[in-house]
């Protein structure tokens, strides 16, 4: 192999790690808000992602059939649509189910697991059991070639860009908006926040819905790199929980650090050993670190 080819492989491998990092971060963000800030173990997180994926499917195929001129841009609009629909579904789920179970974490786990099974069957009945493929616009396919030896996937760049955007928005909202202030107050001390006049129930509902909405955006983005089917969401749920738990539940910085760590460990080890062994190694590293630091990478500063 020539030096330029080796350089190309190194560059692409570096990109593979960053790409996996942004995928993990995007899938974990919504969960980090719900699980981290509210302590709700949302087993249906993957299904809210699937809502996003199906939204893309419906929007893009409709656009391709009825408004062909608009088709190349329908994808971007569909992502906004995915947020709105997943947000609405999350709002409803909180109102009907989750709010009755806040003080019973194990029951929430069971209830949201049931919710996920129910949602899967709804997808199956509505869209059929088989996988579907959304119409991905031309500009999202293929790769950019900075040099002859390097192929940088455009869909990877797109997911990365979206991740940066969503993460930045979440941070701004959490630390600069009224809602963020109330969320942080509620997390820090619910009783006190109530006493100070914050409607914590409303905060909870909004927080849950925003988390679900972000899951929808993640699901929408992943249609460019993964499958769209009734059970697609379950492909991501384990990795999402892993990322959030490893990072330290209540810390968004922790989620970012942990997504980065897991992604690099996995993509580098995948390069030097077979896929299954790489997964074993990654999980081993995570478990070992969690044994030494049960609170995760970044401990929360909340007084318990």
């Amino acid at each position, binding site marked *: 192999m020539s030096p330029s080819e080796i350089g190309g492989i190194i560059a692409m491998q570096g990109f593979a790690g960053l790409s996996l990092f942004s995928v993990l971060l995007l899938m974990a963000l919504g969960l980090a808000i719900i699980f981290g800030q509210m302590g709700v173990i949302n087993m249906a997180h993957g299904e809210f992602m699937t809502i996003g994926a199906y939204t893309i499917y419906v929007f893009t195929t409709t656009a391709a059939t009825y408004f062909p001129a608009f088709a190349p841009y329908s994808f971007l609009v569909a992502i906004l649509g995915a947020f709105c629909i997943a947000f609405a579904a999350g709002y409803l789920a909180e109102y009907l189910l989750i709010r009755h179970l806040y003080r019973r974490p194990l029951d929430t786990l069971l209830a949201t697991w049931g919710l996920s099974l129910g949602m899967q069957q709804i997808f199956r009945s509505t869209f059929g059991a088989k996988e579907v493929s959304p119409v991905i616009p031309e500009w999202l396919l293929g790769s950019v070639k900075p040099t002859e030896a390097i192929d940088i*996937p455009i869909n990877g760049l797109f997911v990365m860009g979206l991740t940066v955007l969503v993460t930045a928005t979440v941070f701004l909202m959490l630390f600069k908006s009224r809602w963020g202030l109330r969320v942080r107050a509620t997390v820090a001390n619910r009783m006190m926040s109530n006493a100070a006049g914050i409607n914590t129930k409303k905060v909870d509902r909004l927080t849950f819905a925003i988390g679900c909405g972000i899951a929808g955006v993640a699901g929408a983005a992943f249609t460019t790199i993964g499958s769209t*089917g009734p059970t697609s969401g*379950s492909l991501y749920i384990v990795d999402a929980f892993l990322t959030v738990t490893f990072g330290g539940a209540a810390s968004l910085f922790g989620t970012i650090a942990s997504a980065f760590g897991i992604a690099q460990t996995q993509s580098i080890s995948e390069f030097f050993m077979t896929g299954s062994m790489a997964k074993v190694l990654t999980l081993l590293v995570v478990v070992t670190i969690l044994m030494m630091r049960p609170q995760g990478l970044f401990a929360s500063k909340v007084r318990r």
Partner: protein
Amino acid sequence: MHDHNRRQFLKTAAGATAALALSAHLSPAGAAVPPTAQVNTTGLAVTDAEVTVGDLHSKTGTMAISETGSIQAETLAIEQINAMGGVLGRKIKIIYEDGASDWPTFAEKSKKLLVNDKVAAVFGCWTSASRKAVLPVFEKENGLLYYPTFYEGLEQSKNVIYTGQEATQQILAGLDWVVKEKKAKTFYLIGSDYIWPRTSNKIARKHIENVLKLQVVGEEYYPLGHTSFNSLINKIKIKKPDVIYAIVVGGSNVAFYKQLKAAGVTSDKQTLLTISVTEDEILGIGGENVAGFYAAMKYFQSLDNDNNKKFVEAFKARWGKTAVIGDVTQAAYLGPWLWKAAVEKAGSFDVNKVAAASPGIELKTAPEGYVKVHENHHLWSKLRIGQAQKDGQYKVIHESGLLEPDPFPKGYQ
């Protein structure tokens, strides 16, 4: 006690009278319908007008993606058989059970079908895991299972008819073709991490190294549901194999092909041969992501023969214009027809007699062309190579001769 005996006597007497009366009864086709007592000596759910069979697939859960096509094909075949007058003058009634993508549930439901419902045959299962779960039940209760999926082989049972291909039928001829046509010298084997891809790749490796005397430059497995293949793709770029031999399944399949395309590994630069992407899978992957790659299967929807044209037309009329038909769906369609032929040859629904009558059964009306049941309960069949098209269909570019099934291949284990 006395009462019981008397009741039993009356029952037997009534049965005998019914049987006598039946010998005169005629089927819709005009042929004499053999009496129930004669065609059913083992207490199966067979009446004078009806025979009950079971259909056991996953209607819910992860596997519903794949198994839906099989349910549809089996239902269609049975409806067509009923429209022709049924089997031995009896209409076929189907009891559907849902295995729910859960192997213990498959075992439980198969027991229910065999013990409570006394079905004459079961059409069902898709994954090897579900088949392994029900196998002891079928052998203990002496049931008959028609299993449609191409699979890894290494199994043979008196109680199972395998209507899909076993591994050697699907693998060897495909590798021979790619070596001859593409002058391939080096291979990269990739699979999802479970029994079928691993066994299949083991057979492929032995064939490549020992028979063809060529080189395997990489062999790798990824967990089911794995969705990031960028590192793997980089390794492929370093090794530069002539052929990628891919047995990736499920959600991973979609991610694998989308990411190959995004990394610039397309059919104009790279030959890829797969045995796990049927027309069903392309629905999820998207035709533009696999266009130009090759698949080795016994059936493609685009096969050009009269049987297949009729089958595709009937399938779409029954299940909708947009329905696609993959290899397994066609194999599932063969099940009821093979069972009908064996029952008629045996002149009985009794499982032992039907199983004994099965070897040698020919089906000239099969959509895939011609199949014949082997002594080992697998089918003689051809292998085709299809090239994936953008519209999600395959173009058939090669067809082998009739291949003998060999579930326990010597030198490949």
